[in-house]
């Protein structure tokens, strides 16, 4: 929000220089924010960095960012939840992202998702109870030439089928 709202002058945040938990990642995040001159318009860049460091954006991290950029927490939360890329909950040890772009869809990506959902008994966006595998869908990763594509732990893999996907996932489950 805040389309044409005047930039707010917040009372100086009394945030500690680093996080009381002593977690070094907060220090790294702070250095990153400093590099961006604590600019409020760098919020999305900062959230990217935070997610890279922490794996997901928990309240503590969002509050830390809000204090340092001198933004209201509601604004930081609003931005973090607007963009699909940001995760507010921890992910499983392994992630399986099935591309559901048009090209992948017409070549059967929906069958891949269905197979994983049935086998793991979770829905897209969820993590297995043992916290091993998270199933996610993407809105097109631009790999249409090799559809359907699935991203296993960050590695794009071409021409997947329900069988090949389950094969990979079963390797994780058994590990």
């Amino acid at each position, binding site marked *: *929000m*805040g*389309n*044409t709202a005047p930039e707010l002058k917040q009372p100086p945040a009394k945030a500690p220089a680093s996080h009381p938990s002593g977690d070094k990642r907060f220090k790294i995040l702070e250095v990153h924010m400093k590099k961006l001159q604590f*600019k*409020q*318009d*760098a*919020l*999305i*860049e900062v*959230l*990217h960095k935070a997610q890279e460091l922490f794996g997901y954006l928990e309240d503590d991290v969002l509050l830390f960012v809000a204090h340092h950029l001198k933004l209201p927490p509601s*604004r930081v939360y*609003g*931005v973090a939840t*607007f*963009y*699909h*890329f*940001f995760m507010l909950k921890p992910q499983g040890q392994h992630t399986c992202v099935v591309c*559901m*772009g*048009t*090209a992948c*869809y*017409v*070549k059967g990506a929906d069958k891949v998702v269905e197979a994983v959902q049935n086998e793991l008994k979770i829905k897209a966006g969820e993590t297995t109870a043992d916290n091993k595998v998270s199933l996610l869908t*993407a*809105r*097109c*990763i*631009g*790999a*249409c*030439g*090799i*559809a359907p*594509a699935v991203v296993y732990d960050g*590695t*794009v*893999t*071409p021409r997947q089928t329900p069988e090949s996907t389950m094969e990979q996932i079963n390797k994780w489950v058994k590990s």
Partner: protein
Amino acid sequence: MILNDLIAVKEKELASQKKIVLRCCMAAGCISSDSKGVKEQLEIAVTEAGMQDEVEVRGVGCMKLCCEGPLVAVDPKNELYVKVTAENAPSIIASLKGGKANVEQTDPDAAFFKKQLSIVLANSGIVNPERIESYIAADGYLALHEVLNEMSPKEVVEAMTKSGLRGRGGAGFPTGLKWGTVAKSPGAKKYVICNADEGDPGAFMDRSVLESDPHSVLEGMAIAAYAVGADQGYLYVRAEYPLAIARLHLAIKQAKSLGLLGAGIFDSPFNFNVEIRIGAGAFVCGEETALMMSVEGKRGTPRPRPPFPAESGLFGCPTLLNNVETFANVPAIYRNGAEWFAGIGTEKSKGTKVFALAGKIKNTGLIEVPMGTPLRTIVEEMGGGAPDGGKIKAVQTGGPSGGCIPSQHLDTPVDYESLGKLGSIMGSGGMIVMDEGTRMVDVARFFMEFCMDESCGKCIPCRAGTVQMHNILDKILKRKATGRDLAKLEELCDMVRNTSLCGLGQTAPNPTMSTLRFFRNEYEELLQPDTFGAGATHSQPVTK
């Protein structure tokens, strides 16, 4: 850096060129099929064969025929190896000394390649995107030099207008007119933004351009900045494109170190800095006002226009916003002249268009063709038709904002107006081929679900209307809907299209409307008889 330095870089690069060049595709598609491993093994094989002095293994950008990747091309033998594995490397290297490699090849003179006309993709698959020298050797940054030294900003805008280039993001707004408006807008601070938030599912042209030839986009942006009087640029890239982001970072760093970006470019008073802003997964941020909100670090919600970004855009300043392909066209236009560009294409649609060909088609990948090329040439001659002897049913262009063009209209020339007449749009260039097995109502629901999920939620027609339309489409597919539901769907399509705040909502009904137009029978077959039992005399007064 002055012109002589630039020429020196070019000559040095050309002089160090080895006799044989193995071009190895290092774009995201081929990397996912282990082209990195292929390149490594090729390098090892070259060393083992002691051919380091004659053979260069060059990592290049996209070589277009993505479905056959990883691709390796051999210059000057004009050979193109497909589906190369790391194990194939020694065989390919051995063949350089004569004989034939035991690796599958494809004909580099096949229609898929021969029918292409490359302007945007001219360097793609040729230059090494990670080395600025490679771009300079292909006459890179010459256009920027010429523009800065020999043209006034006004002349630059005039030339752009003359070229007839129209925005490649989808709507086809004349680029020269846009540049002129920003140039004329009063304001000490102006911005140039490159929209690289390629959000259409099924489109990967911009990703390939950024991965294959990032400097052409930077050069285009710099020329635009000079024309409109901006000194700051932003490249808004999707987070889903990590390789493109990495190459852009590298390209900006290299250009800065050579004085081609930054302060006093080519020793002129012109300054131009570019920053990368990474998106975070929101299709609506392809809409210009939403994109600017996102660059400002806010929720990417669009705002009503006017005021247009050209008058009041990023941080309230006049802002020029073009997409990747538009900027990538710019250097060539100034290098070869506006007349040259205006000579390509049709009367109203000039130049070429890059398409990402995907779906139920034999050859998937990137193609660049002159505007006005018939769809049939693209999907049948170049694409090779449907795989396994299937029949093409429709071609989808424009993604969630576009429509499905049925096979009987395959002779339509690809240009902004012709596609618009068929209820589709040029879009950014995604082209998904559908065969007889594809159910069109399912396609309509797929896109509606996409729009529903991607609606920002700001305006009511898009936020709530897409939900209702999706529910009706779902009901139709579940064979629970009646003619009444279909009528409601059509009424909502009209309403959402006319009342939504931004392009996302305004075009969300397009896939549904176009499938209704050409494949209405598929909808009707799913409808159930109406059991509502209307009152027999319902509009009559009941007095006896």
